[in-house]
């Protein structure tokens, strides 16, 4: 019994030798003169949650709409499960989408909304009723069958939209800003529920979002988009800790970024002169940059230590002094804006570990900032 292969568990390799469930190859989309999506190539694996992250106008929604079939690529090809989607209309694709506005049918009850997709398949009434009941239970909306969409709260509508998109058990679910219309508390709660449901049903999720926090918690892999291009693909940790360029470093989280020039390149470390910082930055394990090359140094605010004493003698690099010009208390952490001698403002965050512990650093106090060799990210583009 166990060694018999399950119909749903067929290996992707049988269909596509490279293991990509969705293969987007050199896809471009132009609206008149405007290029919304430019030569995007992307492989998405079966069963993963892939987040397309980007600002408005970055082309992420257009890419999603091409996957659903609402837009046709100007160039390139999209294959889902090894099948070229070029000539396949939306109503024949093995894909369902959850719309940003939810697009619930306002004249239909919750039950009718969710049943709509199954009715198109011509299932029996009993089968439809059973499947609708099951999926409404999964999204915890059982008992709301007779309500109309306008009688539901935002969070409830989101669940109904999710149920409607999932009820046909699609292999691929496209989610357009699934949590954007929810308030912060509900959003956090729903994020984890989405993850649960995704694992329970084994659906491949492609999520479009402009919210990096949402992308980080939901996505197993992220694709960061800018001006219609994918600028970096990787796990949330990859993207955050090792951004590939200045756009990604700046877009994901906050960052202190300075232009500099490589003074010396040792096999395992770089020394970089940063005029703005008024100091030399020593960075470890970075892509090879020859001496003299101009680079950018990016340091995350939480990777900078703040203290009253100068760091130990002999550690002249990776330390600067300045005065605290602004403090923002956020509860779980505090943000310090420190003005360096060179005039540059540096952003430092510090978790508030203790309750009213040691004497806190105050405004206008002189402080030293320092960081570890591994903290700076050296970027060439």
């Amino acid at each position, binding site marked *: 019994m166990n060694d018999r292969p399950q119909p749903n568990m067929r290996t992707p390799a049988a269909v596509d030798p490279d293991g990509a469930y969705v293969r987007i190859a050199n896809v471009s989309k132009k609206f008149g003169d405007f290029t919304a999506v430019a030569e995007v190539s992307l492989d998405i694996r079966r069963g993963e949650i892939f987040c397309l992250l980007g600002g408005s106008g970055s082309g992420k929604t257009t890419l999603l709409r091409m996957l*659903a*079939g*609402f837009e046709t690529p100007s160039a390139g090809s999209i294959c889902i499960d090894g099948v070229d989607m070029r000539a396949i*209309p*939306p*109503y*024949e694709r093995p*894909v*369902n*989408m959850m*719309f940003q*506005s939810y*697009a*619930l*049918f*306002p*004249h239909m009850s919750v039950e009718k909304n969710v049943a*709509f*997709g199954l009715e*198109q*398949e011509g299932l029996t009434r009993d089968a439809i009723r059973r499947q609708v009941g099951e999926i409404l239970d999964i999204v915890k909306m059982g008992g709301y069958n007779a309500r*109309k*969409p*306008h009688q539901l709260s935002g969070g409830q509508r989101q669940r109904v939209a999710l149920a*409607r*998109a999932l009820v*046909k058990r699609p292999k691929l679910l496209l989610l357009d800003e699934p949590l954007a219309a929810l308030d912060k508390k509900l959003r956090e709660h729903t994020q984890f529920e989405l993850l649960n449901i995704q694992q329970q049903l084994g659906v491949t999720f492609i999520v479009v979002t402009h919210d990096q926090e949402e992308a980080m918690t939901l996505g197993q892999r992220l694709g960061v988009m800018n001006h219609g291009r994918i600028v970096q693909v990787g796990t949330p940790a990859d993207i955050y800790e090792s951004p590939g360029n200045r756009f990604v470093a700046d877009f994901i989280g906050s960052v202190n970024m300075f232009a500099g020039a490589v003074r010396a390149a040792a096999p395992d470390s770089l020394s970089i002169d940063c005029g703005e910082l008024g100091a030399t930055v020593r960075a470890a394990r970075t892509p090879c940059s020859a001496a003299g090359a101009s680079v950018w140094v990016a340091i995350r605010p939480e990777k900078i230590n703040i203290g009253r004493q100068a760091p130990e003698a002999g550690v002249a690099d990776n330390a600067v002094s300045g005065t605290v010009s602004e403090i923002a208390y956020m509860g779980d952490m505090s943000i310090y804006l420190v003005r360096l001698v060179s005039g540059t403002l540096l952003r430092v965050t510090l978790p508030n570990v203790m309750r009213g512990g040691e004497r806190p650093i105050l405004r206008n106090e002189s402080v030293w900032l320092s960081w570890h060799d591994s903290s700076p990210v050296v970027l060439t583009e």
Partner: protein
Amino acid sequence: MARLTLTSGRRLVAGIPILWLLVLFLIPFLIVFRISFSEVRLAIPPYTPLIVWHHGRASLELHTSAYAFLFTDPLYISSYLYSLKVAAVSTLCCLLIGYPMAYAIARAGAASRQVLLMLVVLPFWTSFLLRVYAWIGLLNNNGVINNVLLYLGIIRHPLVLLQTDFAVYIGIVYSYLPFMILPLYANLEKHDPALLEAAADLGARPWRAFLAITLPQSFAGIVAGSLLVFIPAVGEYVIPTLLGRTDQLMIGRVLSDEFFENRDWPVASAVAIVILLLLVIPIMLFQRIQRRELEATP
């Protein structure tokens, strides 16, 4: 003080339409209603008074003979039925022609949409009477349509088009089509295109998506347009008089004949009151649907 001006201002604003309806609708209606309960006589005015003074005592005289007459002479019943039939068929034709047009305008680009709407309203710039007259020139035995068909050799003898039901339908559909298109457009234009995308995404072919999503959501527009066509079409006078049959009159023509040919004001008033009763039912239906629609919108 400010509050006082506000309420009196509000009263004034609400008062103007109320006064308007009172003077121009309710009072004339009551006069007609009162005449319908009198009898014809050769005098000025040509009907019996409502209150008769007899030896210094006033007595109310209500005659129902006008109404009784309506149901004894088959002319009236057949005219009512014919009017309802003509109005219903014309409304259906307007809906079948107007819906696709309204849909196309609602889906057109912003620039062409303005032009198309303008084209719908454009005929109103010419006199209604003139436009109906123009149809005589088109439909005549010796008219444009017959001449073109004869010239092309499609027909050998001219078709009888004028003074037929067909001519009345043409005239009413042509004249009232904008009243169908405009409310339908106003409704269809508000539809969220994402709903049709969602339907397609869930596996509905375009035609099924239209039937399941667009059509039910445009129901209020269909009702509004249909009533705007149906109600005036029932009482239509000019079009059937100029283009229609002479052996079968519409009720509007009967009404005018009673007033001006027979000078039987009581019967004419009774005819008018019965038309009103026939139309009140669809109007109330319309208002109920509109109210339900208002409640349904979040």
